[in-house]
C-alpha cells in the first residue's frame, strides 16, 4: 500500500508559506510610502502555486502518470518551498539577514512586475546576444571538429589551439575585446562564440575519432561518397559527443554573456542588474537574478529536449 500523504507535502508547504507571510508579524513596521511595504501580490502568487499542487493532486487520482510524477517530485518541491519559508522568515519576519540588502520574496516579485517591460527587453537582448554568439561558435566548432577528426593534418593545427586556449577562461580576453572591438555587441558575440567554440570543437573531434573504423569501412563497401562519409556517417555517428559539447558550450556561453553584460554591454540582464545595484534597488537586482535563472534554465531545458529527440536512437536516451 503506497502512502498518499507524500503527495500532499508540497501543497502543505505552500500553505505554510502563505500562513507565515500573512499571520507572523514582520520584523518592523511599514508605512504605505515604503517602497518595499509587503503587498498581497506574494499571497496571490503562493495561492496560485498551492492551487497548482492541489490540481496536480486531483489529477493524480485520475492519471497514473501524473501520480508517478507527483510522487517523484513531491519531496524536491516541498524542500524548495521550505527553503522559501526559511528565506522569508530570515528576511521579512525577523530581519536576521542584513536589511535592506537581502529583500524578501514579495519585494522581489513586485520589483519584477514593476520593471517587467525593461526586464522583458533585457531578456530579449540577452537571448539575441547569446544565440548570435552561440550559433557562430557552434557552426565553426562543428566544422573545425569534423575537419580535425577527419584529417590528421587539420588535427595537427587544431588540437594545440584547443588545448592551450581551452585551458584559459574565455572571459580573460574580455578587456582586450572591450578595448579593440568596434561595437560592444560585436565584441560580446565574439567572446561568446569563442567560449562555445572550444568545447564544441573538442567534443566533435573526439566524437569523429571515436567512430569505429569498421563503421566507415562498411560505408565504404556500399560506395558512400566522401560527402556522404562526412555528413551521413561521421556527423550522425558522433552526434552524442557533439551534444556534450553543445551543453558545455551553452553553460560557458551563459557565463560569457553575463560577464560581458556586467562589464560593458549596455543592455541585457547583466546590464540591468548593474544598474539596479547602482540605484540601490536591491529587490530589482534580485528580481533580475531570478529572471536570469529562469531564462538559462529554459534555454538548457530546450537544448535537452532537442538532444533527446535527435538521440532517440541511442540506448537509454529515449
Amino acid at each position, binding site marked *: 500500500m503506497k502512502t498518499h500523504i507524500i503527495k500532499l507535502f508540497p501543497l502543505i508547504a505552500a500553505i505554510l508559506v502563505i500562513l507565515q507571510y500573512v499571520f507572523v508579524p514582520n520584523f518592523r513596521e511599514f508605512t504605505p510610502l515604503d517602497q518595499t511595504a509587503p503587498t498581497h501580490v506574494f499571497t496571490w502568487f503562493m495561492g496560485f502555486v498551492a492551487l497548482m499542487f492541489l490540481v496536480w493532486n486531483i489529477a493524480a487520482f485520475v492519471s497514473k502518470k501524473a501520480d508517478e510524477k507527483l510522487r517523484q517530485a513531491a519531496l524536491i518541491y516541498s524542500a524548495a518551498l521550505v527553503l522559501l519559508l526559511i528565506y522569508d522568515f530570515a528576511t521579512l519576519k525577523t530581519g536576521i539577514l542584513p536589511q535592506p540588502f537581502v529583500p524578501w520574496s514579495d519585494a522581489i516579485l513586485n520589483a519584477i512586475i514593476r520593471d517587467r517591460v525593461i526586464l522583458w527587453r533585457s531578456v530579449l537582448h540577452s537571448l539575441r546576444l547569446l544565440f548570435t554568439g552561440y550559433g557562430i561558435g557552434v557552426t565553426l566548432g562543428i566544422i573545425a571538429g569534423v575537419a580535425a577528426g577527419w584529417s590528421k593534418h587539420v588535427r595537427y593545427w587544431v588540437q594545440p589551439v584547443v588545448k592551450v586556449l581551452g585551458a584559459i577562461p574565455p572571459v580573460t580576453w574580455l578587456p582586450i575585446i572591450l578595448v579593440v572591438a568596434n561595437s560592444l555587441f560585436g565584441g560580446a558575440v565574439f567572446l561568446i562564440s569563442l567560449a562555445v567554440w572550444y568545447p564544441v570543437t573538442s567534443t566533435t573531434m573526439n566524437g569523429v575519432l571515436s567512430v*569505429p573504423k*569498421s*563503421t566507415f*569501412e*562498411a*560505408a*565504404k*563497401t*556500399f*560506395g*558512400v*561518397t566522401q560527402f*556522404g562519409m562526412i555528413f*551521413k*556517417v561521421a556527423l*550522425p*555517428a558522433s*552526434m552524442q559527443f557533439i551534444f556534450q559539447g553543445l551543453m558545455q558550450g551553452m553553460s560557458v556561453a551563459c557565463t560569457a554573456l553575463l560577464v560581458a553584460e556586467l562589464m560593458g554591454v549596455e543592455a541585457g540582464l547583466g546590464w540591468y542588474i548593474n544598474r539596479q545595484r547602482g540605484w540601490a534597488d536591491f529587490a530589482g537586482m534580485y528580481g533580475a537574478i531570478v529572471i536570469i535563472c529562469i531564462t538559462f534554465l529554459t534555454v538548457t531545458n530546450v537544448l535537452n529536449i532537442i538532444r533527446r529527440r535527435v538521440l532517440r*536512437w*541511442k*540506448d537509454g536516451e529515449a
Partner: protein
Amino acid sequence: MIEIKNITKTFKREGANESLCAIEDLSLSIKRGEFISIIGTSGCGKSTLLRMIAGLEFPTKGEVLFDGEPISGTSPNRGLVFQEHTLFPWMTVKKNIVFALKSAKRYEQYGSIVDTLLETVGLRQFANSYPHQLSGGMRQRAALIRSLAVSPDVLLLDEPLGALDSFTRMQLQDEIVHLWKERGNTMVMITHDVDEAVYLSNRIIVMSPRPGRIVEIVDVPISYPRNRGASEFARLRTRLLKRLDFASEVEHEYYL
C-alpha cells in the same frame, strides 16, 4: 572470378624499422558461386586476405584480380560483413538497408526486395527498430541482409557469427546457406569454427600463421542441406583439426 596471384603483404611496425609479414606468396582462385571458408589460428593473415579482396587493403607484392581486373578499391560488388555488426546505430534496420542501396546507387533496382529480405530472416516486424533494440543475432542478420541487398557478386564474411551463442550461430548458418542458394553469389567466409566451415562451404582453405600461407585446401563434397551428425562430417572435421594441430594425440607417438 577472383584470382589471387602470388601476393605478399607486409605491415610496417609503428616506431620500429622492421616490418611484419602478414601474408607470404599466396595464390588462390575462387570460382563464381562458390562458398569458400578460410580457417586458421589468429595472426595467419586471413582477415588481411579478406580485406584485400574487399579493396580495403592492397598487397605489397602480387595482385588480386576480380573478373580479370585488378582491385583498386571497395565496390558494392564486393560486400563485407564484419564480426561486430556495423549497422549504423542512428538508423532503423530498414533505413540502414535503404541507405546502403542508395549509396550503391541500386535503390531503383533492388528497393523492392528489402521487405522480402527482412521477411526471410524474420526481421519484418523489426524493420523500424533501432539496432540497440535488437538482440545480437538479429543485428547480425540485419547486417547480413544489408550487405546482400545491394546484390554483390561476392559476399565477404569476416567471422560474422563469431560473437553469437552456439544456437543462434547454427540458426544463422542455415539462413546463410538458404540465402546463398537462393541468390547464387560467391561467398568467402573467415571462421574460427571448424564445424561451421565444414557445414557451410564447398572448399576450406587452411592457413598457417607467421607468415600467413595456405597449408591445405580441402574439398567438401557433401550435398546441401547438410547433416551435422553425419560420419563424413566428423571425418572431415578431424582431418581439419589435425591440420590445425589441435588433434595431436596421434602425433604424440612420434615424439615418444
